[in-house]
């Protein structure tokens, strides 16, 4: 199985604040794999994700995404990834369908492809006639479904999602988790997730990276991590990893 993402020593430093928001981040994600980054607040999850999404430039280190260099070829990387930020909104004045069309137009190379992307987006979000309404009238769950559909409708090689189900009710969250799993299997789409919801990660992730104080402390499958920390679930793994790190 080949890597879709391979990070080597990714570091983001803010010299003025004298802080390394992310330091020496090294891990890889395989094609069709669901990879999760977990860690406490301010640990460096979003910084790492934003670097991989080409929004932040690494101070040092490198990453290869689909064979392209993150440092040298970010514009090529943007063609094969999609990014769904935490608590992201959409253009309230647009209708759902107009939003899908607009976002698809940024990725599509011809009208036929654009049409295909939008059709797929419509099917994934399952918003039906509501897609003809203004996004301003949508509930939070509907917006998240629309954004998720937008993120996967172009069949990216790597979908990066920060808190994919945050703020959603149980039913909507379950629906989205199932969809992620299904896309990973059926389309070999890789997912890089960040979440505070350990149950969600345990259900979704093939492998997990623990990040604390800007550094990755462990990478492994949920089973491996549970065994290593002698924990019953990922929440306990997280608790032990964080407290160990605080002591050391």
């Amino acid at each position, binding site marked *: 199985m080949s890597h879709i993402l391979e990070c080597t020593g990714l570091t983001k430093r803010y010299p003025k604040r004298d802080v390394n928001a992310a330091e020496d981040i090294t891990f890889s994600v395989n094609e069709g794999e669901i990879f999760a980054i977990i860690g406490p607040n301010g640990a460096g999850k979003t910084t790492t994700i*934003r670097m991989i999404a080409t929004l*932040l430039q690494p101070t040092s280190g490198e990453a290869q995404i689909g064979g392209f260099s993150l440092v040298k070829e970010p514009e090529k990387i943007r063609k094969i990834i999609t990014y769904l930020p935490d608590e992201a909104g959409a253009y309230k004045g647009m209708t759902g369908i107009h939003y899908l069309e607009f976002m698809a137009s940024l990725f599509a190379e011809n009208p036929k492809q654009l049409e295909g992307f939008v059709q797929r987006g419509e099917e994934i979000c399952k918003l039906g006639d509501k897609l003809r309404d203004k996004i301003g009238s949508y509930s939070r769950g509907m917006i998240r479904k629309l954004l998720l559909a937008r993120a996967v409708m172009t069949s990216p090689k790597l979908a990066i999602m920060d808190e994919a189900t945050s703020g959603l009710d149980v039913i909507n969250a379950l629906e989205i988790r199932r969809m992620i799993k299904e896309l990973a299997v059926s389309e070999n789409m890789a997912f890089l997730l960040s979440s505070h919801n350990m149950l969600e990660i345990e259900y979704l992730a093939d492998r997990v990276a623990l990040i604390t104080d800007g550094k990755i402390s462990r990478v492994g499958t949920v089973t491996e991590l549970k065994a290593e920390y002698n924990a019953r679930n990922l929440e306990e793994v997280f608790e032990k990893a964080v407290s160990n790190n605080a002591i050391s």
Partner: protein
Amino acid sequence: MQFRNLLKKELRELFTLQVIMSMLTSVVLLVLMGQMFGGAVDSAEEQSGAANIAVVDTSNPEFMNQVMSVVEQNLKVSKYNVTSDDYASELKRLEIDNLVVIPEGFAESILNGEPGKIDFISTVKVGGLTSSLSTITSSASISVISHVIQTMVLSGNYGLTETQINTLWNNVVAVEYATFDGKIVNASAEEITGNVMMQMLIAPLVIFFLLFMASQMIMTAISTEKIDKTLETLLSAPVSRLTLLFAKLLAAIIAALANAAAMTVGMFFYMDGLSGGIMGELTGTAGDAMSQLGLSLGVMDYILFGVQLFFTIAIGLGISLILGALATDIKSVQSLLMTMMMVILVPFAACLIADVNAMSPLFKTIMYLIPFTHSYMAIPNLMTGQMALFWFGLIYQIIFFAVVMYFAVKMFTSDKLFTMSFDFSNRRQRSDVRRQSGK
């Protein structure tokens, strides 16, 4: 206790450091404006303190001396000697803006029971509202002279019949001349100045509202995109960041120009209605007089003004785009918008009230450094043919625009869009981070 805590919490939320900084900025700017306008008003008042009168009539010195002595009891008078009837040159030689000339034969006409003719020559002022103050004092002197002569003739024994005295109720006729740049026309300078002011008012008002709306529009748009994180979504999509930047700018320019067109049409009808058809009148007598004085705008002037208007909007949008991208929340947007408004408002008020070129070197420099000052001064500069000042303003704006765009491009093509912010609490956050990380 509950109320006190609630009040404390509300006050703390309302009086953030950004809000306090905005308030202080407003105070500083208003004090500066007061200083600037105070100087301009003082200078205008100084000029308006005395009525400039030149007595050319030598036919009856006794009568004229008597008239002037009574006039001087009622009015502060500065006396001048006029050596030729080329009044435009005389005003230039005497370094004054206006002059009341009592010409040869004035006393003779009055004493013959005929109305006496007085020449009132005034320079057309193309500046702020304060620049016309000196003209008002000299213009008032004509009614004083008229009143003095009426009183003298009625009370004195000048051998006039009752019929002659009765015809002298309108004994002084002022013939008004307007001069500008060495040219002179037989028209009221006050009326021409009024018309010039009307024309000059429309352009700065349009520019002001245009900048206000455009800045608000783009600053709100970009900050909303940043706060809603739709900008992150866009920037991670396969679209060139420069394309994104210029699409935003161009859309804002198109919207601003549409606003400008609507505003101009609205202002035209507003001013037209307000002045009872001033635009129609401009094509008549006052319009002809303005053309003769070289105070009308040609097609090329309008083209040049359009070019400057474009750069004005572009600069306003560029600055607002950068500021909007620095906003972290709605409060910081409001603070930044307020600061931007002050930068737009100060030169607008300065150009409307005072003549920027007549300000002290310090204030003049400050005003010239604000790029929008040159936009507000464009019409007066074009109208008075001060092309060197116009070109200086336009070139300065082009350079300023290039600098603004350099920073905008740098911001959009790097990660500064996400790492920089307008947040005074950063200092506290930084120290928290250091404390937490033990560094």
